[in-house]
């Protein structure tokens, strides 16, 4: 999924570059090329839509004609009916709201803690070296194994779930940010020193700004992982939220509910990821727009 998004992104960027060329006044061959590019992009969107639509249609027909058992496999119409039913008293929205809030909160905490820890690690090389194996082990550990422990320690409730969400992504995120800081060219740091700057200047003027792209790609990974952690937490220790609905649905054999929750999760994951993508595009776009408008 991520790959597809990246590819599309690249195409968008290319297209943007081409449009600026066109604005500079380019031949008819250029416009023809641009047209074909746009047609290509349109066709990609159309195929995507067709696949989604075809899948839903097939699913509906299969369960309607009895090709698959709609008790086990549900159907789009049953999911929609259930969703409308549950929207009436805002029950479903309450669950969505809880899961979303927990995810966003864990995500924010992960981002802040991992960035701050990575800054501390890079400023204290010896500490970083001492702590490295601990971080690696914690990162490699399947975090779902920690969830029962967290429940025993903290009881059931929102705190537990947020901690579960944090635990899934935090260590990987620290390692990623730290590696990102490390990859900043040593020569650029030397430059700061030749200009009379200190280590703190190097951090402020080189490492942090140079790591913004890594920070954002890291955030894109974290938002997905936070959602995973929150759902695991809700499986085990919640009375609300989509993870709870999934477990509840499977226990009472109400598979419409289960499948609807999964579909809603798909949409949430997509929306969260795309909002970060939008932020990323805006940051990139801002710098390139800044170039042209001020020049």
């Amino acid at each position: 999924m991520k790959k597809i998004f990246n590819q599309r992104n690249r195409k968008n960027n290319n297209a943007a570059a081409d449009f600026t060329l066109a604005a500079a006044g380019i031949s008819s061959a250029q416009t023809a090329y641009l047209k074909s590019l746009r047609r290509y992009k349109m066709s990609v969107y159309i195929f995507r839509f067709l696949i989604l639509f075809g899948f839903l249609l097939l699913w509906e027909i299969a369960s309607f004609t009895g090709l698959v058992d709609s008790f086990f496999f549900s159907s789009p119409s049953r999911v929609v009916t259930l969703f409308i039913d549950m929207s009436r008293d805002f029950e479903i929205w309450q669950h969505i709201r809880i899961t979303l809030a927990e995810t966003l909160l864990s995500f924010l905490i992960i981002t802040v803690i991992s960035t701050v820890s990575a800054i501390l690690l890079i400023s204290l090389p010896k500490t970083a070296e001492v702590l490295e194996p601990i971080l690696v082990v914690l990162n490699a550990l399947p975090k779902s194994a920690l969830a029962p422990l967290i429940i025993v320690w903290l009881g059931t409730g929102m705190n537990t779930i947020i901690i579960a969400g944090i635990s899934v992504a935090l260590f990987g995120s620290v390692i990623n940010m730290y590696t990102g800081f490390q990859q900043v060219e040593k020569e650029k740091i030397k430059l700061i020193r030749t200009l009379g700057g200190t280590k703190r200047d190097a951090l402020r003027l080189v490492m942090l700004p140079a790591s913004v792209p890594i920070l954002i790609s890291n955030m894109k990974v974290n938002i997905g992982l936070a959602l995973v952690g929150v759902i695991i937490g809700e499986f085990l220790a919640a009375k609300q939220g989509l993870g709870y609905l999934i477990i509840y649905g499977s226990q009472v054999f109400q598979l419409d509910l289960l499948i609807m929750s999964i579909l809603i999760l798909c949409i949430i994951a997509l929306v969260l990821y795309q909002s970060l993508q939008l932020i990323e595009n805006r940051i990139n776009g801002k710098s390139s727009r800044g170039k042209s408008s001020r020049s």
Partner: protein
Amino acid sequence: MNILAGLIKQDSGSILYRGQSMLHDGDSFYTPRIGYMLQHDHLFEWRTILKNVLLGLEIRKELTKENIEYVEELLHKYGLYEFRHKKPSQLSGGMKQRAALIRTLALNPEILLLDEPFSALDYQTRLSVSGDIGSIIRENKKTAVLVTHNLSEAISLADKILVLSKRPATIKKQVKIALTITDHSPLGYRSAKEFNGYFNEIWEDLCDEKNI
């Protein structure tokens, strides 16, 4: 070079500047001001050219009106003023190198250290940029120490060439360069009648070195 710039402390010996020992305060020298130009321009992509060349002043907290005016004057003089709000990736290699030099000059150093500043450029750009930078340094009357592996570059730019031996490097030879030229361009220097003589002289020194 790193020791001269005050980045590394010398193991032994002392560094004299106008007869005075330069004191190392642990982080870097204070006086005299030394400008150090690295192999690559290392302009920061997230800053505009103007902000890039002001970097040193910003670090030393010397962003005074006069200093900024001086930098803008330098940008004017060396054809970068119209590009001051561009990002480094929008400039050519030669322009970037000139911007890097202005960033160094902004601090008004008494000595300039240049560590193979043209090695990242292709030959054509290298010729014109080395000419530009040579004349900028002459115009601003700065003392410059240039490290290079390019003989013709050394001869065309330098007043005095120090040939260094292999590790551990010692000064093997000093050659004073005096070219009779009328045309102060990179090609003009290279077509001076003394050029070939110097070239062969230094080349032989370097060859001896290899045979040892």
